[in-house]
């Protein structure tokens, strides 16, 4: 009988799994082996992660509940059930966040000579004087206090802003029964959240809201301030755009961006111990209750810790900044096209520099033989050299086609600006396909060479963003393989709205072909296992939550395929289910760099195949996006990719192993040589380029010596 691998109990709720991921990030903040200031960074990340999580995931679950959507998720839970679970879990993690902050981080900072004054009352007299002066000179002019009474409605509180709510009482009205009124003031986001205070020994800082609280009386003259407490709200922000209705996508997104300020309030964070009456007003006005309210024991919105990380003078408490290394294959070669003609080049960022990718476009822009440059852009950096190069190329008379994905979440505004800039420069800008996000990362350079057209292609797992390329681990392939070149041309034709090609040589594309391709590749391992052969899959990605793919993996595991998954984030697959997933291991590496590459290895009965791509095993990647999976055909490059996978499999410092009970455990390091994959790759990249290139030009002549005795 065929086993059913799709039972809900075999799956984990994806939000629950995501919260586990944020717990792992928090784990890094709690880890005493992490340099103190790096811990600040991780703690800040957990906070911004939660913000995004609420804005999108929690918001859409709320939407489901509101419209009475009853369909169950992968783990058999309704939206209501999920919300209950999530909020409970987030409450737990948030209290862990703040106990880390209060009990671990603050004392450690103090020990290192940095005092964070948590209550304005605790300042020294000199500090108070400084703070008050700072308030009058810098803060007061930009504050806009707002009160609510019968003639003034409750003001619009902006999404994600930090505010101070107060109850105020009109003075000198003693005869009548005075009622307290509500007033609020936004903590200005234009001012730094952290204010450094004068200090006799060591350094001290205080948060802006404390300084405002201390001086709040100055805002409401003739009133008595009964109490003042910070609060912060989160609104439903997931963009829902009806593309069929929206004639002009660009305009529609601009319109939606304005609307984002007005979404339903889905989370209220208040200071623990907030005045009951004040809280009651907020609850009523924001129409919120229960677990949606977070009572915070500490400062709201920990993302200020990222700013604290930036304080100078604490370099010894941070990781040494890593400089991405040159790519060995490109070191003796100024002409990137000539280098690619020699052989395919694998890039591994951020260990290797992102420059070749930028240079690829830059050089193409200048090269008189280049006819056309085509590129997909999803998220780019603020002042992107790639955009500049593309504009330059268009001005140089090249045909430049750029697919700009307007729907890249939270980058919409940014994307519109430079899309217009590119259009102005004469680029042919396409805005993607209706209903599909273009997530693939591909660049095509068409060159007219002596013996005909030659196409150079860059395919990547990460965005064309030179800033994030220093922080995200990603892979890229530079090739001039004819068959990939042809496919690349077809990809851009398809993205421009032309018919799909009759067949693909090498690439597999979502949303049409990629899912089936993965089924095939997994299914082939299953067959080899059933035939008694060796079968092995190693897959590295960001998230795994596609039900069908997981079912195929269970089926493969049950057939005896060994499956090792390296999944940084969400993983809805459960390990260790008897007869279902005993042959599957899942590890998550959360380190200094954000693990972002997608690499897939299939043993294929001894003829190994390795693929890379832009897609995770998530329904949205496989069904709703344009994604590309590309094979590594050159054996040397395949070996390099396998090396990356095997080092990650050996990591015992930053890796967490998924346990059958759903928890993630770090590896017991006793008696083992410590290996941190990210550090290893950093070191390796340095070593690879350290070999002296040209001994003749060395100034020092080194006399030969007999080999030293060991």
């Amino acid at each position, binding site marked *: 009988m065929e086993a059913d691998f799709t039972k809900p109990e075999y799956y984990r709720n994806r939000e629950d799994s995501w919260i586990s991921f944020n717990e792992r990030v928090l784990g890094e903040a709690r880890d005493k082996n992490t340099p103190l200031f790096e811990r600040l960074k991780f703690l800040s990340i957990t906070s911004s992660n939660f913000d995004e999580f609420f804005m999108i995931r929690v918001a859409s679950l709320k939407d489901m509940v509101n419209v009475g959507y009853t369909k169950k998720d992968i783990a058999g839970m309704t939206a209501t059930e999920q919300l209950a679970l999530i909020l409970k879990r987030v409450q737990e993690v948030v209290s862990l966040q703040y106990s880390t902050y209060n009990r671990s981080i603050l004392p450690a900072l103090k020990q290192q000579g940095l005092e964070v004054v948590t209550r304005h009352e605790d300042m020294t007299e000199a500090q108070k004087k400084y703070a008050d002066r700072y308030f009058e000179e810098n803060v007061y002019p930009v504050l806009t206090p707002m009160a609510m009474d019968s003639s003034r409605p409750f003001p619009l509180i902006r999404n994600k802003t930090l505010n101070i709510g107060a109850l105020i009482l009109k003075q000198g009205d003693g005869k009548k029964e005075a009622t307290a009124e509500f007033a609020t003031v936004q903590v200005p986001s234009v001012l730094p959240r952290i204010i450094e205070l004068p200090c006799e020994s060591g350094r001290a800082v205080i948060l802006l809201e404390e300084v405002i609280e201390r001086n709040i009386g100055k805002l409401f003259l003739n009133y008595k301030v009964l109490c003042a407490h910070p609060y912060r709200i989160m609104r439903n922000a997931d963009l829902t755009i009806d593309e069929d209705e929206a004639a002009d996508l660009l305009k529609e997104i601009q319109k939606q961006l304005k609307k984002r300020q007005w979404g339903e309030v889905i989370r209220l964070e208040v200071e623990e111990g907030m005045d009951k009456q004040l809280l009651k007003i907020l609850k009523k006005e924001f129409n919120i209750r229960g677990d949606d309210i977070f009572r915070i024991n500490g400062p709201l919105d920990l993302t200020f810790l990222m700013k604290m990380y930036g304080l100078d003078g604490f370099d010894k408490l941070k990781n040494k900044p890593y400089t991405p290394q040159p790519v060995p294959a490109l070191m003796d070669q100024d002409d990137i096209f000539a280098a690619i003609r020699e052989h395919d080049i694998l890039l591994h960022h951020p260990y290797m520099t992102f420059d070749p990718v930028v240079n690829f476009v830059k050089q193409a822009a200048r090269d008189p033989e280049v*006819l*056309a440059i085509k590129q997909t852009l999803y998220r780019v950096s603020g002042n992107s050299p790639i955009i500049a190069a593309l504009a330059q190329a268009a001005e140089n008379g090249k*045909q430049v086609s750029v697919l700009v994905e307007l729907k890249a979440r939270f980058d919409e505004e940014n994307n519109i600006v430079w899309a217009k800039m590119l259009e102005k420069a004469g680029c*042919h800008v396409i805005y993607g396909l209706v209903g599909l996000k273009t997530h693939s990362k591909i660049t095509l350079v*068409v060159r*007219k060479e*002596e*013996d*005909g*057209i030659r196409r150079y292609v860059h395919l990547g797992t990460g965005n064309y963003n030179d800033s994030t390329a220093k922080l995200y681990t990603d892979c890229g392939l530079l090739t001039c393989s004819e068959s990939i070149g042809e496919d690349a*041309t*077809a990809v851009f*034709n398809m993205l*421009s*709205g*032309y*018919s*799909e*090609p*009759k*067949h693909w040589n090498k690439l597999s594309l979502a949303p*049409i*072909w990629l899912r089936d391709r993965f089924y095939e590749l997994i299914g082939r391992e299953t067959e080899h296992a059933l035939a008694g052969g060796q079968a092995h899959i190693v897959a590295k990605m960001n998230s795994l939550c596609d039900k069908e793919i997981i079912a195929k993996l269970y089926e493969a595991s049950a057939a005896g395929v060994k499956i090792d998954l390296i999944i940084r984030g969400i993983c809805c697959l459960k390990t260790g289910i008897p007869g279902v997933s005993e042959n599957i291991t899942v590890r998550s590496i959360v380190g200094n760099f954000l693990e972002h590459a997608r690499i897939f290895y299939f043993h294929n009965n001894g003829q190994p195949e390795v693929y890379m791509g832009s897609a995770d095993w998530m329904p949205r990647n496989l069904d709703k996006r344009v994604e590309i999976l590309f094979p590594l055909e050159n054996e040397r490059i395949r070996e390099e990719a396998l090396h990356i996978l095997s080092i990650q499999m050996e990591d015992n410092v930053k890796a967490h192993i998924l346990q059958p009970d759903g928890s993630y455990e770090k590896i017991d390091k006793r008696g083992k040589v410590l290996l941190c994959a990210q550090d290893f790759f950093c070191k390796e990249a340095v070593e690879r380029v350290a070999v002296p290139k040209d001994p003749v030009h060395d100034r020092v002549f080194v006399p030969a010596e007999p080999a030293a005795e060991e």
Partner: protein
Amino acid sequence: MAVKMFAAIDVGSYEVGMKIFEFSPRREMKQIDSVCCRLGLGKDTYNTGKISVKKIEELCAILNDFVRIMNGYKVSAYRACATSSVREARNHLLILEQIKRTTGLSLEILDNSEQRFLDYKSIAFGEKNFYKIIQNGTAIVDVGSGSIQISLFDNDKLVTTQNIRMGNLRIREKMADLVRNTLHIEAMAEELINNELASFKKMYLKDRQVKNLIVAGDYILELLKKPMVETGEFRVTYDAIIGKRPEEIARDYGIPSESASLILPSMTIYKRLIEEMGAEQIWMPGLSLSDGIAYDYAQKNKLIRAEHNFEDDIVAAARIVAKRYQSNKSHIRNLESLALSIFDKLKKISGLDARQRLLLQIAVILHGCGKYINLSDGAECSYSIIMATEIIGLSNRERRIIANVVKYNTFEISYEDILEQPGLTEKDFMLIMKLTAILRVANALDRSHKQKFSEVRILVKDGELQIHVDTSEDITLEKGLFPPKADYFEEVFHIRPVIRQKKTL
């Protein structure tokens, strides 16, 4: 030679496509890019008789984008061709004008035989085994939306081509009304086709052995997965898909569902043809009109060399027609050699080219076919036969020129009559005059049909076209009837043909 880039644009009935080709001295001709866009021009034309303004604008937008792509590749030459959907549209001249104005492209309307010839060229060049295949009996089948074209080969020559007005789109539309009433769509489609096929078989197939069937175009290659299958394999695939819905086929074989719905009727047509012809192997080169346009361009510009002589096909097809109408074979042979010798000697004076030489040759071959119908009205009947007989490789205009040359071989030439005929210009009128003059002289030399003028030397000398004959036969008849033909010839070319007989004993 530097690398050359060429664009071939195909404005079809439900798709507009462009392919970019590269010709380089060291490499073979290579396709660099291919874009294709759905646009139902045929729907407009077939339903309303013309293409709507909205569709024309869409077409112009697409073609403008094509121009952008062409510029991107620095294309040095292009050819844009439209087929039946534009050809049959009443407003086709306005369409061409609008396209020229908004895109700068000159769109050319191909008539059926030109189009089929290009399709055929794509196969002859693109199918590596073509030369080998046609050594045995072969048929090329091209199933279009409105008609089926069947071309037959015999001894490596294309001998006949016939158009059957029963295409996949037509069948699909006819079936659409009936689908609700029956479950046996397949059987009904077969019935629709059978009737048409029966006459074709009786007239042209006879007992020809057709071992190979070459299938042009379409998505059939995606269905059968390899470029050649045996009949048995075809049967297996046919049985597997015939019961399926188009969406299933689209999903299972990864082809667009619009095409999938056309594949079912196409497959039924192929199946019936295979059965009727007893074909053993089915070849699918998977080529399209754009490929043919590119090969044609390459051949004309000597960028590639053809293994196959396409003019031989045209000549062979003409001979088959002549044979069918029982023309006098030896008379034709003799006339061909006379007419072509005169043509060649006149080259400097006449300004005619190789293509026009071919037209003369075809005119000679077909000049007597009308006698089969009516002895006294042979010329008029020949004209009608030629106008009704499709000869692959000749355009309608060329065929009309031939028909006129044949007609005015005996009639007095009429300027008005010729210019009234569709598609003929003053230039064509001049060409018809010139070719007629040559045909008349040649014909006069074999008036008796006895091939008295078999040893002939032709010279241009002393302002005369001297025809030296080495014969002991009595040529009084020829000489007697010669002067009026010679008068006309002199009028046209300003050189007088004279007969010089050298008596051999």
